[in-house]
């Protein structure tokens, strides 16, 4: 299980958190075209590589925070365990 570094609580099991996925900025609801609004709703970069993603520390501090994670290797930008590069089955 991923050990997620919460900026408030320190490293916590991913099961203590809720995953929020890619952040995406919300267009102005009064001027957005259907295409812009639905881009916000549905379209995703879904990159294989480094991404920035949202987490919610639901059982710990209950704060939202962002994390940089590599979706292929599982690496974090600032891993709580030193020396924890992981390869994985790609």
């Amino acid at each position, binding site marked *: 299980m991923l050990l997620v570094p919460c900026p*408030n*609580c320190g490293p916590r099991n991913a099961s203590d958190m809720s995953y929020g996925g890619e952040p995406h900025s919300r267009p102005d609801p009064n001027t957005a075209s259907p295409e812009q609004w639905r881009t916000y709703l549905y379209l995703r970069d879904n990159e294989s590589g480094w991404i920035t993603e949202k987490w919610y520390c639901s059982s710990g*501090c209950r*704060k939202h925070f962002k994390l940089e994670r590599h979706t292929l290797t599982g690496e974090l930008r600032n891993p709580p365990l030193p020396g924890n590069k992981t390869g994985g089955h790609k």
Partner: protein
Amino acid sequence: MADPPAFESPVVTIGRAAGAGSITLTDESATTKASVRAADGTPAASALGLTFGCAEARGDVLVARTRPDEWMVFGTSQAVAAHLGGLDLSGYASTVDITHSRLMFRITGLAAAKAMAKVCSIDFSDPMMPSGACVGASVAKVGCDIIRHDIDDVPSYRILCDRSFGQYLFDALVDAKAEFG
């Protein structure tokens, strides 16, 4: 009408070996509990102090900073009222009485951490969770706040959760501690 009725605990402890053996489990749900919410820099936050994740006894109340912007205060209703009475809520702070929404158990004994390790993934070793530490975590799949506050150097944890889970969680804790006699 008559006197205000007595507090009804959500758990039946009788016949469940709660106190047997080297670990005791007690129901402290009737304790008055209050939550204070205040952002950094507000007078209330400065007055309540503490580092996030820490707790301490202050006179006859126990105060825990359970979230970066939340404190919990426990004690008798008078003591809690006295402690919060003078709090300056300006700059935006608020209080909610959570006596009825959160129940509280206390698990005490030399092997209490071992029993907790069967139901909770937090590291209960002394350096990571010393007396005077508190943490929000899942216990037997129920979201809880855990506050360690030892009695005479014997490890003791207070566990708070939503009242409705009371009996379920109590039984899970009785089962977890059974192994340790």
